[in-house]
Structure formats: C-alpha cells, structure tokens
C-alpha cells in the first residue's frame, strides 16, 4: 500500500479556502491539472455519494465518489472508481485547519492505494507532486496577498 502525505500553508482564512475547495465538482476552477468536470446523475456536488467524472489536461478520464464531507472539520474524503493510473483501493482525504497566527490555512492532502510494485515510485511522484502539491501551489497563488 502506497501512502502519500502532502501539506502546505495558504495565506487566507480557512473558511475562504474551504469555500473554494469544498465544491466536489469545482476542480477545474482552481486545479491546473484538471480540464473539466461534471457530477453524474445531476446530483448536487456536496451530496455524499455523488460521483465526479472529470478529465485531466493530458486527456485521462477519472471517476471519483465523494465519501465524506464536513463543513465543520473542513474535510472531504473520496475514492477513485476508475482511472488510467492503474491504482486500486485508492482513498484520499483533503483537510483544512485554521492557523490563528496570521489568519491562514494549514492544508493536508493524504492518499492510500495499491498498485504494481514497479510503479510505486512513479505514482507517488505523479499523485503527490503532480496532483496534490500542484493543487496546493495553485491555491497559494490564487489566495496570495497582492
């Protein structure tokens, strides 16, 4: 089982950052690697159990199910149903925590999954750096104080 943990600090209050990321269908609005997204079956994007169906900029299609969403804890958990990455039992959680000193946000993104041993290092890099860190870097830029 591969485990990934990526964390960062965004220079904006946690409720504002949460507003941006809580939209399960909203990745294209803030994540540079995601091109488009829709929720299957016309479900609301914050209904636990809904499925997002999205494309990455390199053309890959991914379907993920929302398993948990908490506006109290600023966290959401989701699982991959289909993807071209060759991962199984993929479970990820994003969580925001307020940093009172400076009214900023501590962001964590974790994932666990299984894959062919030969691909572990590449997938660790692709998901950890290419998706999670890239996402947080984008949020940092979008919320940076001018």
């Amino acid at each position, binding site marked *: *089982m*591969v*485990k*990934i*943990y*990526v*964390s*960062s*600090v965004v220079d904006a209050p946690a409720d504002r950052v949460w507003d941006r990321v809580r939209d399960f269908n909203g990745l294209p609005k803030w994540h540079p690697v995601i091109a488009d997204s829709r929720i299957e079956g016309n479900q609301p994007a914050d209904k636990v159990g809904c499925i997002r169906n999205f494309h990455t900029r390199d053309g890959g299609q991914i379907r993920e199910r929302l398993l948990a969403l908490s506006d109290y804890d600023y966290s959401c958990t989701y699982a991959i149903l289909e993807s071209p990455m060759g991962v199984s039992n993929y479970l990820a959680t994003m969580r925001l*925590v*307020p*940093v*009172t*000193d*400076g009214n*900023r946000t*501590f962001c*964590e993104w974790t994932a666990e999954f299984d894959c062919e*041993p030969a691909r*572990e*290092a590449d*997938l*660790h890099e692709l998901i950890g750096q290419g998706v999670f*860190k890239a996402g*947080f*870097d984008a949020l940092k830029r979008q919320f940076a104080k001018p």
Partner: protein
Amino acid sequence: MVAITRSAIIDAPIDAVWRVLRDFNSHHLWHPAVATSEIEGGQPPDQPGCVRRFRLRDGAELREQLIALSDRDFSLTYCILDSPIPLLDYVATVRLRRVTDGGRTFWEWRSTFRTPPGREDELAGMVARDIYEAGFAALGALLGRGGAVRVRGVVAPLVARGEAIDAEAIVVRDHGGPEVLVAEPVRVPPPGPGEVRLRQTAIGVNYLDVYLRSGPNALLRPPATPGVEGAGEVMEVGEGVTHILPGDRVAYACLPVGSYAAVRTMAAQQLVVLPAGIDDETAAGAVLKGLTAEYLLHRTHRVRRGDVVLVHAAAGGVGLLLCQWAKHIGATVIGTVGTPDKARLARDAGCDYPIVAPLADFAPQVKDLTHGHGADVVYDGIGKASFAGSFEALALRGHLVLYGQATGMPDPISHATLAEKSATVTRPVLFHYTAAPEDLRDMARNLFQMIESGALRVSVNQRYSLRQAAEAHRELEARRTTGSTILLP
C-alpha cells in the same frame, strides 16, 4: 466551560520542534513567561504521569502533569494540578503536523477549562495571548533562525534530518561462541534513498543467528551486528520510500544481518507495516518464524486436510507455529521433542502425537502411529542428527523439507535413494520466498490474519535485554528454550 484553540506555522522541521516540545521540562528555556522549572521526583520529562513544578517571571508557582505523549502523532496532553490563577479543570493538548511544503511545522495548542463567573474572557484572553501566542513567537524565533535550544533530560528519539546518532548494538568482531556477542555503542547514519531509520522495540532471536555467529560464512563478516528479525517504530524515511511513513510500526525478517541494535538504518523494501492487533514483541517473535511456517505449509509443500505431517523440534519457535497451523489446515501432526515438558507444549499447540525420544529412534514410532504409511511431509530443521530418520519416516511419494540444519548439514543422498520412495527432498530458504514484495505482503497478510484471529498463538517464552544476547544464544543452543526468544533494547 472555555475552549481555546490557537495555531501557528513554525519555520523549522517537525523533528526539531517536537524534540523541544516533547521534553515536558523544556519550557523555561524558550517560553518568555517561565523563569524556572523542574520535574518532581527525578522522573523522565517525557513520561506520562511526570509533574513539572515551575515559577513564572511574576513569581507565581504552578504544577502541571503530563497525561499523554505520542511520538507517533507528535502530540501531548497535560493538565494543571496547582495554580494561583483560577484556571479550573484545565486540560491542554499540543499537536504538531508536518508541512511538507518547505519543511515547516504546524503547531496547534488548545485547552478547555472553567473560570470563576465573569472572568471567562479575561482568562481566556490571557491564556491565548500570554501563553500560546507568546510561546509560538518565542520558539518560532529560536528555531526558525536556525538556532538551537539545548534540551536537557532524555535523549529525544527523533533527531533533525541528516544527523547520525549513537545507539547500542551487539557487535561480533570474530566468529565463535556466544561470548563474541558484545554490546557496543555504534553510529547510526541517517536513511539514504530507499532506506528508513528504525527505533527498534523488540528483536527476534533465531537459530540462523547462531549459525552466522559460529563460523565463517558469506552473510556475517566481522565486524558486524547479527540478527535478521526485528520490530519497531520508523523514525525517518529516506527519498523514494513510498509504502512507509515516519511513525509507522513495522517489522521485518530479512537480510542483511544487523537487527541486534537499538536503532537501525536499513532498506525499506522488506519492512511490513504491523496491524493494530499485533504488538511489537509478538511481531519480533513471530515474523521470521511465522513467515517460515507460512511458506513451508503453503508454498514449498501445500499441506492438505488429512496429510500426515512430521515436525521436528515441535516445541521450538518454528515448531509450535507449524503444529498450530498444520492442525488448523486439518493435517495429522506428529512431532519430536526432547523432554516431556516440551511434549506438553507441543500437544497444547495442536501436535496430535508428540514423541519424546532420542533423535535416532523416532522413525519406527512414526511408522507405528501411521500404520506403516509414514509421514507425507517432514519438516526438518535439525539436519545431520535427524536426516536419516526423517527419510526413513517418509511415506511413499513423501516430501522431506530440510529448512534448517541445527546439527549440521546432512550428507548428500543419491538419486537412487530418492527412487526407493519416489521421495522429494527440498532445501528451501525463507529469503527466496520473500524476495518479491508482493509475495512478502501476501505471506505477511496470511500470517497476521492467523495471529489476529487467534488461530495462531505466538509464544514469546524468553525475553532478554539486548546486552544479554550471549545468554539468549547459550540457552537456545542448550535446547533449554521453547517458543520464541526476543531481545529488548
């Protein structure tokens, strides 16, 4: 009830911040409000239950007790015992999280308490501002500047990335008897790519360690630390390690030798993460022997319900596991042991017919017990002293699995001899079965399921301190041990 939470980002690695905070008596070195502090009764400053008595700069004296501390979660909880300031039922928790972006630390400090009516805002404000926020600023400045805080007391188990640390290990400088197992301080380097640094909590002793200590061999070239089995907590991981995180509880049974040590840096590939239901001591007593039983019963030979299985040294570490697991599968288990006490142990472990006999004499008894059929599979870790008897006890088309040689390597047998019974003789080695990570994970999963479900009981019957490794070997070689033997650093 007042509840306060304050948090900050410290521009220093989590290990550096935790090293300071985990010392319950360090606050007078960095917190501006604290003048002096000491731990009552000479207790270690990282032991839950210890009490710090300290004086603030304004003269007030307080006592606080450490309730919980977790190096795995980077958190600690404490409460106020005595204080002139009316913070009633005050319980506070400090929690750190790693900020991977920039090697920084998220620090959260929270508490709940009651106050006299009307003083909630005043006291909550005081705690938040003068204790928490002042603490963040002060420690942040000290560590963030690349400065260091000298922390007295227990050597912190976590160190800044990149430092070698000193720890105790057994070092063999010459092959020989148990007396060559001598404890020495060694320098343990930080983990390189693909490696982890592990703080070991329990070490497994195996007969293989005796072989490798006794005479020249390719696997232990002095000066070297012996041992191939251990369990503990991961301190840090090197680049490219994807299946282990710092804080994970892991165990291993693999080469190269080096497990007789308090701290060890090693390749991560052969480490397995322990499930919550298996503690470190059980793991150290079970991994090598359990993985051995797993492959012997399922991979070298697939034992089926109704098979007759002969287990030598049935009360030994591997023996007890083979008896239990073979019985679980539904085999008829015959075992050889050296004493009546060991026979009792073997029987309790599922051995249907323990034979107490000198090693020359067991074969006729096996034939008798099986109405002349013999054993379909023989698991022989004894070698020279038992081999001829093992072959004699073998059924037609039987499988003699020589998985060890405690009394030396048996003489070679000829193909003609094999033809007498259409016999198979195999000399398997654990490490060939665990070499592929997916096989190792498969085998470990099977073993852990058996242990967690209670189907396999692990008997850690002998415990020694790391320094007493020689004694452990003496007892093992004298056949005075039963079940598993572990060393505790």
